């Protein structure tokens, strides 16, 4: 696992024009950016696009990275904005099938098992899809990416307390939706 100081060195080298350093940063943070994008957009191709766009923007704006937050948090901020913007722009005509649901259905051979796999794997994803994008982002950042309230506040551009209260509301809504679906 790469620790913070090493990442800071890589960021400084990348900002100085070292392409290899930036490649390492991409390798280190590719999964987390893709994960957030996939949970926010429900589409692997869209998530891949957002991932590339995130790193492209990061590369262009490396000079503006001041180092007040972690580099990963900064990347989350870019990715979250891109996802929210994409969600706003695209009106989904149909509910996409989450990749976990497809994978679970392919692995199970018995039709009943396939249904169960689809049900268990897609329940949380369906509940997330039913939430408003901001609430969804809060749940994803807190319980999938395991960020603390301070980091979430930085990403959303609000205070720690505000992120805490927003998250409490999002959790309540999530549980209501989840229980309704089951």
């Amino acid at each position, binding site marked *: 696992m790469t620790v913070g100081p090493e990442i800071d060195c890589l960021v400084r080298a990348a900002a100085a024009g070292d392409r290899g350093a930036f490649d390492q940063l991409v390798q280190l943070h590719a999964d987390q950016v893709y*994960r957030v994008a996939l949970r926010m957009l429900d589409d692997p191709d869209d998530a*891949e696009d957002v991932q590339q766009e995130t790193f492209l923007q990061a590369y262009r704006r490396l000079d503006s990275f001041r180092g007040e937050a972690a580099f990963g948090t900064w990347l989350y901020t870019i990715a979250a904005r891109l996802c929210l913007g994409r969600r706003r722009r695209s009106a989904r005509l149909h509910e996409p099938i989450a990749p976990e649901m497809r994978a679970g259905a392919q692995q199970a051979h018995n039709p009943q098992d396939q249904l169960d796999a689809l049900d*268990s794997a897609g329940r*949380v994803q369906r509940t997330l899809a039913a939430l408003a994008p901001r609430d969804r982002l809060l749940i994803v950042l807190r*319980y999938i990416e395991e960020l603390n309230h301070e980091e979430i506040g930085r990403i959303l551009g609000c205070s720690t307390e505000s992120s805490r209260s927003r998250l*409490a509301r999002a*959790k309540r809504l999530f*549980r209501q939706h989840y*229980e309704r679906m089951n």
Partner: protein
Amino acid sequence: MSDCHEFEDALWEAAETRHLPNKLASHLESCDRCRHALATVSSVMRELTALRQVEAPDPAAAVRSRLVRQKHRQRWVLALAGAAVLCGAAATLPLVRHQAPASSLVRPAVIPAVKAPTRSSAVAPPRISEPTPIGAPGSASAAAQSAAQIAPSKRSTLGRGEGAPALRTPMREPSEGAPQEPESELAKPCYQVTIVVASPPQPVEPRPMVADPTYRSLSMPPQVDAAPRPELSGDLGIGIHEPS
């Protein structure tokens, strides 16, 4: 009910950390609703943990696939552009082909300006307004060349026109009994008429055969006009003879 609302955060935290605080535990003993909620949140937490197991595709591979897609798109665009250029060229070619005869049709129209002699006046030289050098634009040969480019249907009508066929007649001495050729060709007579017009016998002043130093220096024989020399005319009997 208000107590249950307060324990919402504690339920999520307990499900996340798998640790039950005393206060929450005592509440759960007396509240079935919160127990059910805790079971739900624990299930949610497990599924959320499962959602973390996602591997991003290799960024380099993603970039490569994107480049391949872009290359395919560029090839299609180039192919379409090439097809469009070919179609455009094919569309303009017939226009060029039609435009060339249209411009050449102007010159044969000059031919009728020549006064056409009749067959009976074959001995007399044709009266052409102004002799033009062979090959010059507007000359008879140029007209013949341009007429040769006209479509066959056009050429046939021009060949049977008023002026063009009649121009050929002075060159031909119609022999008696010989069948006359049909006057269908245009180019050859036009060319010959010009020669006849350009070479009427003109009285030329005979030049004395004097050696010219200029010719010597060029090592070329002096060119003398083709006019008949007066000293030879008597020997050949071409001079003036009194009728016997």
